[in-house]
């Protein structure tokens, strides 16, 4: 009984720490500097992209190198909603997410015919086609891109209210609103991932990842599960992409469909943090941000250092930093496994309470 008590109290302590952490993060725009808000915004958006990619590669076995397609489509459709159709940018974010999801359906139709490395290359090719198509969209500046009209974010949903509430400039209020949305997105993605992965479908998905043929033979429909996850992750990635470009306020095909920014860095985050775990991408996003700050002044050396670290982790700690931590301490946050029930006695009577 004492062990279950301490386990219970460790759980309560964990929940308490998480609540304090989340409350602290909500309060950042009120108590922190605008630079901090912007930095945390980029960490949070990268985290959401990483959680989405981790879901695909780490749990569904879909190693996509075409996530920039969804970021770019989300961004472009958000710009179209705002500039061409006069909608609120936040409505544009939602429409951008839906557009990315719709795009993922034909993309899945073609890419699911490919496996492993071929799937990766196929998704990359499709993303590049999307980039080329976007650069033909003359109403949004074609190859040179376009900017959000000055003052667009000033009138964005919630911004005037936050401006008055915190008594800050419109620009700072817009940063606060996008930051809170990124925070909400990250928390939602984390919660949905956790609940989904512990469900029947999540277990089936991991079985498909581990062995396709065996999964079919135990009654799982692999295509349906993979398609579901692929389209939902496209939605999450598209939403995030649109949100990122509200903050940037300028879109070009090169920036919105950048494989380095929206896929390579995201893969790096997941791999060094720990692929196939939920805390992994969180740890990875923090490490990535720290490295970015530390090495920002060294130019290309920064990319070389990231590459070397990525290779080192893949060679010596295949389960990432989070894998190292759980191996050393046996401590696991957000465990996804289903523990076998305590063994029943031979006569199947309930085990008597120990006194």
């Amino acid at each position, binding site marked *: 009984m004492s062990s279950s008590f301490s386990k219970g109290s460790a759980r309560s302590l964990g929940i308490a720490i998480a609540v304090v952490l989340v409350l602290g993060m909500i309060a950042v725009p009120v108590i922190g500097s605008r630079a901090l808000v912007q930095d945390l915004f980029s960490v949070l958006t990268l985290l959401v992209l990483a959680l989405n990619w981790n879901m695909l590669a780490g749990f569904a076995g879909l190693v996509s190198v075409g996530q920039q397609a969804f970021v770019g489509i989300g961004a472009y459709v958000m710009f179209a909603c705002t500039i061409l159709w006069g909608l609120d940018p936040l409505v544009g974010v939602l429409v951008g997410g839906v557009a990315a999801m719709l795009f993922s359906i034909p993309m899945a139709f073609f890419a699911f015919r490919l496996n492993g490395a071929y799937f990766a290359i196929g998704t990359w090719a499709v993303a590049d086609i999307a980039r080329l198509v976007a650069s033909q969209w003359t109403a949004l500046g074609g190859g040179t891109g376009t900017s959000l009209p000055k003052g667009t974010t000033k009138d964005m949903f919630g911004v005037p209210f936050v401006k008055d509430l915190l008594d800050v400039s419109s620009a700072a209020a817009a940063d606060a609103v996008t930051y809170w949305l990124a925070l909400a997105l990250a928390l939602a993605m984390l919660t949905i991932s956790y609940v989904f992965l512990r469900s029947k479908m999540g277990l*089936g998905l*991991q079985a498909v990842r*581990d062995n396709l043929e065996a999964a*079919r033979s*135990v*009654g799982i429909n692999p295509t349906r599960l993979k398609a579901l996850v692929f389209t939902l992750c496209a939605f999450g990635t598209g939403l995030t992409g649109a949100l990122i470009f509200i903050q940037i306020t300028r879109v070009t095909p090169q920036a919105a469909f950048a494989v380095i920014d929206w896929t390579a860095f995201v893969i790096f985050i997941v791999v060094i943090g720990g692929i196939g775990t939920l805390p992994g991408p969180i740890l990875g996003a923090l490490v990535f941000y720290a490295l970015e700050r530390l090495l920002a002044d060294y130019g290309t050396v920064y990319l070389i250092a990231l590459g070397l670290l990525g290779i080192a982790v893949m060679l010596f700690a295949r389960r990432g930093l989070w894998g190292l931590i759980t191996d050393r301490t046996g401590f696991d946050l957000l465990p996804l496994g289903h523990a076998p029930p305590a063994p029943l006695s031979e006569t199947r009577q309930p085990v008597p309470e120990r006194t």
Partner: protein
Amino acid sequence: MAILSLQNVSKSFGALKVTDDVRFELAEGEALGIIGPNGAGKSTLFNLIAGNLRPDEGVITLSGRDVTGESPMQRCASGVGRSFQIPQPFGHLSVYENLLVAARFGGGVSGHDAPALCMDILRRTGLAESAAKPAGSLSLLSRKRLELARAMATRPRVILLDEIAGGLTDGECVELVATIRGIHGEGIAIIWIEHVLHALTSVVERLMVLNFGKMLMIGAPDEVMASPEVKEIYLGIEV
């Protein structure tokens, strides 16, 4: 009515006919053994029955229903459980989760009932101690047991066992035979491919001999093993 029936089933890989006009019926709860030299088409026959391969010709029915065009997933739902000759565990999932996923999907067992069912099967197959271990870390013998256990978790009406006794010690073999007898005793029909003849003949009621994709003989184990033709082909004895 026969639970499983194959009518004139044939399958070719290119010019090679690996299954040649196979026809037989399996009665409800019956145990059938399949023997034959390597490359006789035994595993291919399983792939055809489980739906991993489609026959070029012929009809496969389950309880009278034509399932020839159905996927492995649908066949599993209709009551075909299978093991693979080369074990195919879900390596990153625990042994228990390997069964849980099979019970939830293929067996249609509710989340409430699945844990007890899975633990019961793990105990009967001697895997209870390994329940929490990652399936990828198991030894070959335990992986073979897991193949049997996972197929059981789909709650099959007919179970296909592909060489699960190969490489076992005598003691382990006796245990395995007892487990399979237990499954048979529950009224689950069994088709068992095996080279370990004494294990096979101690369970099955009928024996089929395959050679070059063709059914050479099917009948009572004693009769089949006494046939000079079988002795020559399968045991390599010149008669």
